[in-house]
């Protein structure tokens, strides 16, 4: 695994897992900003898309097409959760909102486990090209490179959409000041539905990038642990979102890359420090929480919108 230039190789690993965290964090932040719900069911929504992909691929649909179809179906889970449940909760009641997202997560994760038939692990066909590319004299996995490029490209497209299009501006207006946005004729329910839909698609993309490719040439695996990936995916994604104070999208993406890099680069550290790898994300999160990053990003107006 460690070749001539371990630093470059490890950086590539770190950036590709960071891309996953970043995409998850983008979805978390988008939904939180627009609807005020911190979505603990984010990974479960993405997981359902992976299950759809697996089903389609097993039915003989070409893998790339199966992946695109799964991605297209993925907003359903998030929008259903919003329409059936979250719309009915007053925004101010954060404790109830958190507990309900946890409940939704469990419903979706159990559904996924049921579809998979409770097997210890299920094989997933890869859809990204397998192989090696050489970069600065180092052999890199194609999947890592494609993951990074794809994630950055899609994130950039999403950020541009959010910044420049009419719908994106409407969503930002709702995030900034709901009352005023509604008075200006922006449909709050429509904006929230769009946010949940796009957030779900981002979660689905993140998991579709990582799960089918975890085992390299053999393709991917879903283990029973992936059905509830608290430590491996969810916590770094929350950490990434915290880098942007839970509201800043570009910083959330950057935070994702930072968490991925820290985790992988610690592999190269001398012995006692490399043991920190498994707790690095947790320590970083506690640091971010104590720093209260939101004060750098949330304007007074936005704080009111989020708390009201």
């Amino acid at each position, binding site marked *: 695994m460690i070749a001539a230039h371990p630093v470059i190789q490890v950086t590539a690993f770190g950036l590709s897992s960071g891309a996953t965290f970043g995409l998850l964090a983008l979805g978390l932040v988008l939904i939180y900003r627009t609807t005020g719900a*911190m979505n603990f069911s984010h990974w479960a929504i993405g997981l359902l898309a992976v299950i759809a992909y697996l089903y389609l691929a097993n039915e003989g649909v070409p893998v790339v097409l199966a992946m695109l179809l799964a991605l297209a179906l993925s907003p359903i889970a998030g929008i259903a959760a919003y329409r059936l449940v979250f*719309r*009915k909760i007053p925004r101010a009641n954060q*404790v109830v909102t958190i507990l309900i997202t946890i*409940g939704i997560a469990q419903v979706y994760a159990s559904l996924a486990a049921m579809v998979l038939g409770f097997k210890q692990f299920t094989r997933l066909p890869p859809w990204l090209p397998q192989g090696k590319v050489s970069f600065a004299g180092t052999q890199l996995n194609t999947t890592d490179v494609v993951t990074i490029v794809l994630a950055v490209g899609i994130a950039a497209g999403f950020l541009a959409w959010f910044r420049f299009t009419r719908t994106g501006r409407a969503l930002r207006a709702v995030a900034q000041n709901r009352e005023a946005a509604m008075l200006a004729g922006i449909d*709050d*329910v429509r904006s929230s539905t769009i946010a949940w839909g796009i957030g779900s698609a981002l979660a689905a993309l993140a998991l579709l990038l990582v799960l089918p490719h975890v085992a390299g040439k053999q393709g991917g695996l879903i283990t029973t642990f992936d059905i509830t*990936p608290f430590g491996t995916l969810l916590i770094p994604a*929350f950490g990434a979102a915290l880098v942007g104070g839970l509201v800043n999208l570009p910083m959330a993406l950057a935070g994702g890359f930072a968490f991925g890099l820290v985790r992988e680069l610690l592999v190269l550290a001398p012995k006692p420090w490399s043991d920190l790898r498994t707790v690095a994300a947790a320590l970083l999160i*506690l640091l971010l929480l104590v720093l209260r990053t939101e004060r750098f990003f949330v304007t007074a107006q936005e704080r009111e919108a989020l708390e009201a």
Partner: protein
Amino acid sequence: MTEHTVEVSQPLELPAVVRRRLTSAELAGLAGLGAIALLPIPFGSFGFFVGQFALIYAILGLSVVVVTGYAGLVSLMTYSFAGIGAMVTGVAMASWGWPFWLALPLAAAATIPVSIIVGVTAVRLKGLYLAIATLTFADALGETFFKYGKVTGGLSGWIVHRPSPFRSDASYYVLLLAVAMALVWMVTGLRSSRVGRAMLAVRTNEREAQALGINVYKTKLTAFLISGVLGGIGGAFLALLLTSVTRSAFQSPLVEATSILLVTVVVVGGIDRALGAFLGAVALVVQQQVFQGARFFFAYFGIYSALLLVLFLLYRPGGLMQVARLQWRLIRARPRVGIAAAAAIIGLNVGLAWLFVRLS
């Protein structure tokens, strides 16, 4: 937005502080509890095992009641406290040869350093930040404390034995019943004590509480300390129930899943009442244990408990306690309909459970 909002009645009203005599409703409730406590007897040793499990979840549920129900702090690390309690009991009994009655206070005390660290962080955090923080703490403890071989006994864990008069299933059940009831009584008392009322005030409105001269910092820290100690006590008794404690139950993702189940149990029972933890544990854990043999257990129970969590939060935020209150009111207003409905609900549940035990 407003026209779509269903008014979720929040269980936030402060409790009546005046002590008064038991009402007929409460007497009926106590009689019901007595009946529930006798339930395991016809099912023999399996019945007692399920009962012991439910009572331990009730004790752990009390930990959630104090921190989330009273103080309004979402904690997703309750089972980590239980893990600390269980592991410390394991070390003390299996490795140092301590008797259980000495290991129990140590197990409860061992949670204090962790609660202090979490509590100190919690003071600065609101709602969802705290939920993220506790999830992170649970994960970090799983990677540090629960990986430390001297504490966890490595992969094989610890074997512990029940102390002498409580070896049999029935006697251990009675012991747990006594402990759980004593703790329910204490946590109920806490609610109307000075500290408990401070917690409820902090939950309702932090700024107002501060204006009233309540030390928010101290109150939140106290909530975490009590929650940790209750978790540690529950963990110690859990170790005795399982007789073999291994660390994997307290590492990610099992530990988070169990902490979430505990929150579910308490929400179903009634999150801001001590008895709610007991009711929720009886309602959910009994089903969990009874259905464990069924093939589609994981999906069945996962979906079922999660749906209960969501539905109760949406429509009955006061949990089964609220349902019982409403039912009692119905009985008072229209006795025949009320009693028939109550009998039908109880009969249906008991009948189904009996059928399931018979079939599996």
